[in-house]
């Protein structure tokens, strides 16, 4: 299932807001076919990095590519990318299905795929209800359904478990796993390592915009001890140096 080509690659990716460098010379490599966790505390620069990968925010420095296409040409790679950035964003007055239809129309995708993605996230029965009637978990799932429209090779999910209860978090893990089993690369961010470590076979850990770790999840474990401990120790050491 896994080939060794690269889904995402960046070199020196940097974003500054005013005098603050919020993403600091990131070198990322995400192999195609993995579930990659993108982990760091709140404010570490995860969302900003993902926005740069998706052509929403322009890097101040650095280069990169997604599915082999340079970051400077998002129109070249976004048709094969599905993403849920920050929180789900839909039109409250339209139904879930209609919201997806707007996106399908905009992206030139076949609207016939909509029932299948709604089914996939367990929203088939509520697709006709207006978005504003959805619970947080349903909104999150509609966001994932939208990301799955158009058969993407890469799915980017930014903190999909935010605000969910433990059952919702477990369900989300199942969805992430199943997306990957279709042969898609998944990049999922979280501020809690514990929420993603079980599903990820690749991990990127960042703090204050800098990369602290990147590699197979088992390598992070290899030092012995618990993942969470490693995770915390990384931040204590950066705090010591900053």
């Amino acid at each position, binding site marked *: 299932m896994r080939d060794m080509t690269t889904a995402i690659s960046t070199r020196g990716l940097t974003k500054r807001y005013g005098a603050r460098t919020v993403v600091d010379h990131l070198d990322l490599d995400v192999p195609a076919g993995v579930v990659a966790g993108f982990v760091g505390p709140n404010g570490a620069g995860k969302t*900003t990095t993902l*926005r740069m990968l*998706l*052509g*929403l*925010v*322009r890097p101040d420095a650095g280069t990169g590519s997604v599915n082999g296409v340079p970051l400077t040409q*998002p*129109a070249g790679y*976004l048709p094969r*990318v599905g*993403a849920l*950035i*920050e*929180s789900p*964003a*839909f*039109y*409250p*007055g*339209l139904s879930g299905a*209609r919201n997806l*239809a*707007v*996106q399908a*129309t*905009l*992206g*030139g995708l076949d609207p016939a795929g909509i029932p299948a993605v709604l089914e996939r996230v367990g929203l088939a029965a509520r697709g006709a209800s207006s978005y504003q009637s959805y619970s947080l978990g349903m909104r999150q799932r509609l966001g994932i359904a*939208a990301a799955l429209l158009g058969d993407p090779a890469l799915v980017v999910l930014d903190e999909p478990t935010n605000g969910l209860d433990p059952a919702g978090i477990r369900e989300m893990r199942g969805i992430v796993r199943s997306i990957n089993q279709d042969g898609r690369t998944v990049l999922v961010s979280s501020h809690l390592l514990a929420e993603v470590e079980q599903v990820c076979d690749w991990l990127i850990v960042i703090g204050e915009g800098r990369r602290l770790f990147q590699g197979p999840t088992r390598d992070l474990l290899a030092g012995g001890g618990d993942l969470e401990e490693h995770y915390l120790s990384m931040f204590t050491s950066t705090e010591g140096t900053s």
Partner: protein
Amino acid sequence: MTRTFTAELMKLRRPRVLYGALGALIGCTILVTVLTFATAPTPPERLTAGFTNASRLVGVVVLVVFLTGVTTEYGLGTLRTLLLRQPLRDRLLAGKALALVVCTAGALLVALAVSVASAAVVTAARGTPTGPWLADAATGYANALLAALSYGAIGLALGVLLRSTAVAVGVALFWFIMVENIADHTWPAAGHVLPGLLAGAVTGIPGSVPYSHGLAGVLVYIALAVTAGFIAFSRRDVSN
């Protein structure tokens, strides 16, 4: 761009948006028309006079519609979703603008019909004579549409530049309702340079600068607003 255009029309099917804007537009027109024909000592002969008088209010409504068409995308965060599906920002904005232009053209046609009809009712009730109105209505419509689109273009640019509905609407109302009105009474050159007053010249509001001057001014404002809006939209980070 057809995809963007169609997607935009799908969103406009939200009843609150559609009926709100259309209701405001038609409400304003009827109100001004009735005031024009019912209260004037000698009612105007042109049945389209009410529509002309309403053009400034209509313009502001159109401006708010264009403006919120952009700012709600920022407010809801849906702009990022749209840009993931259509990363070519020029096309996204062009499709949105085109959908708004088409809707404006349709709404103005309805407003014109409603205005002429209510003017006919009022003049019939008062028993005053009226001249032929059809040719009047055609040129009146074309000019009102152009004037409305200049407001719309400015609304689009304000929406892109300010991104917040509250701030942008505040700025627009302050400018078009306060500043231009005061300037009109206190500064002799105001009618030659301010966008709302130039649009008034295009629709034929009495006391405006000559039509040709208004037309040129309005076209310049449309060009400036569209250019500023598109440049800002394609360059700015989308980080909300």
